[in-house]
């Protein structure tokens, strides 16, 4: 399974990439694979305030609708609106298909994110 070493991960199968003050967030290979063909995404708006543990978006496959939860609190600074017209890109390239960029307000929440090897272990346990 594709789990890039330079990203951070959550237990709910999202990835996070830190770039300066922002953290880009998307769903992992494992997540897109278990969801199946994705046909719809709902994203937050720039300026939305997100609390960790809250759903910030929705991904729907031909099988079901799934909430996407944020592990970080903060303000949404950018949104990848291209995914709205091309939700299939999440299946094709999950790690390029970031959904939002958040400016985290709690540094401690960043520290508890999983590294690639810890996340891989989690996937193996769940598989």
């Amino acid at each position, binding site marked *: 399974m594709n789990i890039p070493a330079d990203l951070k991960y959550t237990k709910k199968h999202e990835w996070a990439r830190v770039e300066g003050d922002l953290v880009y967030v998307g769903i992992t290979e494992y997540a897109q694979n278990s969801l*199946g063909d994705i046909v*719809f995404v*709902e994203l937050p708006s720039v300026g939305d305030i997100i609390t960790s543990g809250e759903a910030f978006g*929705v991904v*729907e496959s*031909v099988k079901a609708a799934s909430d996407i939860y944020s592990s970080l609190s903060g303000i949404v600074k950018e949104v990848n609106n291209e995914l709205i017209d091309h939700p299939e890109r999440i299946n094709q390239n999950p790690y390029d298909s970031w959904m939002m960029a958040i400016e985290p307000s709690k540094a401690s929440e960043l520290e508890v994110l999983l590294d690639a090897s810890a996340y891989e272990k989690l996937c193996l346990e769940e598989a």
Partner: protein
Amino acid sequence: MKKTPLYQAHYDMGGKIIDFGGWALPVQYSGVLDEHNHVRNKAGLFDVSHMGEIMVRGTEASLYIQRLITNDISQIKDNQIVYTPMCYCDGGVVDDLLVYKFNDKKYLLVVNAANTEKDYLWMQENLKEEAEIQNISDEFAQIAIQGPKSETILQKLTRCQLEKLSFYSFQNNVNLDGIKALVSRTGYTGEDGFEIYVSPTEALELWRKLLEAGKKEEIVPAGLGARDILRFEAGLPLYGQEISQDISPLEARLGSFVKFDKGEFNGKEALLKQREQGVVRKLVGIEMIHRGIPRYNYRVQFNNKDIGFITTGNHSPALGKDIGLALIAREYAQIGNKIEVIIREKKSEAIIIQLPFLQKKYKK
């Protein structure tokens, strides 16, 4: 979970297995969209061995079945099939099924897997005529080959002239490359195709032969996910969603399968009353105007008033639109009416459109 005779093939070929009403069946292989696309344009192979089969035999078998079902079997010949609801006395639906006529003393009823026990008990309770019934579900595996290339592929395995097998007819004891099977020109996808009933011991061999025979035509094994979208696009009902104990065939637009002039049958009085007074609810097709995918049981509103619910909804790959079937109060059911679907606590606008969403491509 119960396993069908094809379980090993699903597992070996990478099918994603789920619990479907107590049966271990593949929800998908390569992916729902890919499998859907193959069935609409080429061919797909489905394991439908979980379906129930109930044999009815006896001198009054015809009379008995006529009383159980809403459709009329008096007009069909031997080797023909009818689709029909089977109703309770209040007009609710026990199940929807296919009746295969071998002759007027022998019929095979093919019922929904999850309803088999219930149907059998209901049929037993209602038996007054000279007939006997037998649940022979374990004696059959069932494979459906569906899609425009189905005939070409299946023909490679048999000398039986399939082009002569018309829609909703069947042939028993067909030799499929050494395997004896009952072959009917039926399906649940809106495409041309066949359903093949075979002994469980030979099912795996036939499954492999069909995949091999269809290689050039690019046949793929397909799962429940694709099957549900295919039947939904074609406007075919699913028991438990479009019809149920609480939803009558008339509400579900299945009036053409209710024959009031054939004599007495279970539910006739209640359904007649519904027809005379007009149904209170009606099944309609909807297309989303706002972004969003309608799903089973989402509420439907008009001017903030609840008027019904979604029975099936999804993204339609064939149409490239988000569509649904909704059971709503009759007064709002006109085509062109705008309604609202409650998706995650928010209202999303939709419009009522003509059904079926997609023209069926059956070979008559």
